[in-house]
Structure formats: C-alpha cells, structure tokens
C-alpha cells in the first residue's frame, strides 16, 4: 500500500535501527548508544511518512507533533525516579490509546466504503480490543501506583463470571464488526466493553503484583501496534509491535517465575487480601531490637554486608541515604553489596534505577541467584523495606501462601538487621519468621531517618 521506494527503504532502516537499539540495551556500557540509534530510526520513520503522497495536510500534523513534544519533554525531565512505575503505566495507556483511536478511524473508513469481511477488518478488531483494554487497564494501574485508589485487590462476588461475560460480549462485538464493518452503536458498544474489560482486568490485582501486570500491559500495547500493522499492511509496525510484545511477555514471565506463580494466578488470584490473620496473628512473639548506635557499630565491624532493598525503601525515599551508608561503610573497608530480588518494587528493575540514581555503582547491584551463594559467609544482611522476598517460609513451609517463591536467603547471614516501621506483616499479610530469629535485630523507624542516623554515627558525629 505504500509503494514509494524511498519510504519503504526508510521503514526498513528504521526497523533495523530498532533491532540494534534492543541489542545494545543488553549492557549498561552500550545502552545509551541503543537509545540514540532508536531515536534515529524513529526520525527516519516519521520523515519517510511525511513524504508519502497521501499525506497532504501538514498543519494539523505539525501542531500535534509540537503539542506532544511540549508535553513529553517536561514529562521526561521533571518526573522523579521514584515515579517511574507510574510514568510507565501512563505511557502504556497513551500508546494504546493512539493505536485504538487509529483503529476506530480505519473501521469507520471501511464502514463508509461498505466493505465486507477482510483481513483488515479482522486485524482492526484485535487492534481496538487490545488498544482500548490496555488503555483503561493502564490508567487504573497508574491510579493504583499513584495511590489515587486503594492498592489492595478490589474483589467482589462472581467477579470472574462478570469478567468472562464482558470479555465474551466484547469478542462477539468484534466478530460482528469484522464481518460487517460499521460505525454505529455496535462500534461504540464494542469500545465501551473493551474499555470496561480493561478496568475489570486490573481491579483485582494488588500492589505487589504490579511488576507482572505492567510487563503484561507492555506486551498488549505492543501486540495492538502489531495488529495495526496487519490492518495497514505496514511491516515496520508489525516488527516493532512484535519486539515490544516479546519484551513485555519475557519480563512478565521473569516476574511470575520470581514469585513462583502462574500468569493465571497473578491475573485472577486476588493475592494479598485473604491470607492476613490466617496464621499466627495476635500472639506477640518476642523480638530483639537495636538502636541506631548499635546497628552502626555492627555494620562498621563487619567485613561483608549485603543490603536487601524493597518497595519500602522507595516509599521512604531512602535511596540517597542508603547510598551514603554504602559510601561510608565502603570507605571504612567494609565490602557492601546489594541483593536485588526480581520483584522488589513496583516494576521490573525498579530498585536498580533508584540505587543507580543515588550513585551506587551498578556492579554492586547483584541478582538474587548470584548473591544467595554468598550469604552464608556474609556478616550482616541489612533489609530495608523488603519483607516477603526474604521470608524463609517461602522456602521452608510448604503450606505458606508464598511457598516455593524464590527468596533472597538473608536468614543465612551471620547477623540480620531489618529496618521496619512496626511489626505489621507485609503486603501478602504473611508472618515473617526471619524477624524472630536469635540473630535478628529489628531496627524500628522510618527507613530514611534510621539510615541517616546510622550514617551520622559512622561519620563520628553521633548526637551524644
């Protein structure tokens, strides 16, 4: 349908650029080059499109490009790193919205021509379905991450039946639209159903499962773009959408594995609303607590320290203080490393970005599988705002709600320290036996304040 050899060539080179971009993303040393080649590919694709003879009216295009840039640039520079999960959810919804709206326009065009069923009309069904559901699902994910709505799963009786009914109704509309493209109430009804399904899909998902869901929405947004490529006969869109879809699915699979759960369980499990109180609630078991002074001394006298950060560190915005602690201990000759669980935080790679922002060198950020072997010879494991990812019950208690989930084996370290506000159980509502071990010291307080206090002690400026 394109037919212009220059544009075809531009699209082909753009596709190659995107592939190189992902290839160079594999390592921090080449990743920035990956961004540059991606930008170049994008420029080629846009310039090529503007040269198409079908494109005659540039005024609105220029206005929209300028408006989008005017919003996009400040969004990129002003967004704090702690809000990266929210930004990602927001951009999934914008991307999916663009794709879905294009689908609507193409569908009305087909309807205007009185066309029957075609390859394009089927592809448009997929495009709009994935586009609208991803759009509303991502908006709800954004609202949950921003805590505009509760981060707990929203569940009601018969939920799965309602979801199934809405989904089937949307699919039925899509089939009818594909058979007889039309722009009337059926199209509007279809849009409403797909959008509603997106909301229903994310409503029962709790905060701790957000990494998987964000990855999955990434995949859907990519597939929607691919479907658009099928409808328009545009190979660049098909390739790009497939790359994006593959990326989202791989990340989602990694997240699921890191929680020892299946896709189905994440999507329909309603994790984190029932288990609270089921086990060991009420009985107050003794714990040992320690002061900032004691904790600082133990860290100072250690040879090796492993810090395990979790979402709590992000909430308390403690990453800069943690980095100061890292620096202070390193300067005293202590070997300090960070143990990163794949699902720590609210999106894949969340902890890495926060710690990198705070100037921790990336070779000190160690993956779970790599660091677990070293923990038995580690003097101190310092847990900051993590809970379920260090819960030994996942390994030892087959009846636990998180049984089988791979954990960072902090309990094997010689001494364990846990910074925590109170003894309230974590997100999954599961008791953590780690807190009651003889070698565990609980450090009660706000993560940021407590770490800042320890840094002060270490620099010799303690308040006493």
């Amino acid at each position: 349908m394109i037919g212009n050899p220059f544009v075809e060539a531009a699209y082909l080179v753009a596709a190659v650029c995107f592939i190189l971009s992902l290839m160079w993303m594999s390592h921090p040393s080449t990743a920035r080059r990956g961004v540059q080649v991606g930008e170049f590919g994008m420029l080629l694709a846009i310039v090529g499109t503007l040269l198409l003879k079908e494109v005659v009216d540039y005024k609105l295009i220029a206005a929209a490009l300028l408006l989008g840039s005017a919003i996009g640039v400040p969004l990129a520079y002003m967004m704090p790193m702690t809000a990266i999960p929210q930004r990602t959810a927001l951009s999934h919804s914008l991307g999916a919205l663009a794709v879905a709206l294009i689908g609507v326009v193409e569908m009305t065009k087909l309807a205007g021509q009185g066309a029957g069923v075609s390859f394009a009309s089927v592809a448009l069904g997929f495009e709009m379905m994935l586009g609208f559901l991803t759009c509303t699902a991502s908006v709800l994910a954004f609202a949950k991450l921003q805590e505009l709505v509760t981060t707990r799963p929203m569940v009601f009786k018969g939920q799965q039946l309602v979801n199934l009914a809405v989904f089937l109704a949307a699919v039925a509309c899509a089939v009818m639209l594909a058979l007889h493209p039309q722009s009337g109430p059926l199209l509007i009804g279809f849009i409403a159903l797909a959008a509603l399904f997106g909301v229903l899909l994310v409503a029962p998902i709790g905060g701790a499962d957000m990494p998987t869901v964000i990855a999955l929405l990434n995949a859907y947004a990519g597939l929607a773009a691919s479907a658009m490529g099928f409808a328009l006969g545009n190979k660049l869109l098909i390739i790009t959408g497939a790359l994006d879809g593959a990326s989202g699915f791989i990340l989602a699979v990694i997240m699921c594995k890191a929680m020892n759960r299946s896709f189905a369980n994440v999507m329909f499990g309603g994790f984190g609303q029932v288990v609270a109180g089921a086990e060991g609630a009420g009985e107050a078991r003794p714990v040992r607590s320690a002061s900032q002074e004691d904790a600082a001394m133990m860290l100072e006298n250690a040879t090796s320290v492993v810090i395990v950060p979790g979402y709590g560190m992000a909430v308390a915005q403690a990453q800069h203080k943690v980095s100061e602690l890292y620096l202070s201990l390193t300067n005293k000759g202590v070997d300090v490393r960070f143990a990163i669980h794949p699902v720590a935080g609210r999106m894949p790679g969340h902890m890495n970005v926060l710690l990198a922002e705070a100037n921790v060198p990336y070779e000190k950020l160690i993956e779970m599988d790599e660091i677990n072997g070293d923990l038995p010879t580690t003097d101190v494991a310092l847990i900051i705002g993590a809970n379920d990812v260090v819960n030994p019950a996942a390994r030892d208690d087959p009846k636990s709600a998180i049984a089988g989930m791979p954990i960072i084996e902090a309990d094997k370290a010689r001494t364990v320290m846990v910074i925590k506000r109170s003894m309230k159980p974590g997100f999954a509502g599961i008791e953590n036996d780690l807190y009651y071990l003889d070698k565990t010291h609980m450090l009660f307080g706000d993560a940021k304040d407590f770490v800042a206090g320890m840094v002060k002690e270490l620099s010799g400026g303690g308040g006493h």
Partner: protein
Amino acid sequence: MRTAFDPDLIAVFVLAAFLGFQLIKRVSSLLHSPLMSLTNAIAAVAVVGAIIILGEEHASPLAKVLGFVAVTAATVNLVSGFLITDRMLKMFKKGSPK
C-alpha cells in the same frame, strides 16, 4: 488497507517476535526499567499510522479529531520515552563514586 490475507505479514510477525525473544533474553535485569521505557518509545512508531490519517486529503472531521489525539499521544510517548530512558541510563555508573 489490506483486504486480502497476506501470509508474508504473518511471517514477518513470527520472525520479529522470535528475534525479540532472543534479544530481550540477553538484557541484564539491571536494565529492565529502562528497557520498558525504551520499548515503549519504540512502539510509539504507531505515530506513522496516525500521521497518515491526520494528513490525508478529505479526512473526515472524526478522522481529524481522533488522528490529532493519536499523533499527540504517540508523540508524548516517543519524546518522553527516549528522553527518560537516556536519563535513567546516564545514572548507571561503573566504579566507586567520588
């Protein structure tokens, strides 16, 4: 628009998806957040479809309105996506901080 079934397009999709799996598998888990914002920016290439709709001769008012929104939304994504990916990557430093 494509009206006939074109097996070439399916082949392109399957090969690209396969390539995508191979490429993404090799991305260090360190970089999973920037990877997401990068793929997001790249997927905003959907802007080309929106540009065609918006720039066509005799575009209907509906096409103009929806096309305008689509170009704007996709541009926000591609601009902020590339910029924020680079912002994140700049922070990943090797060696001991001074």
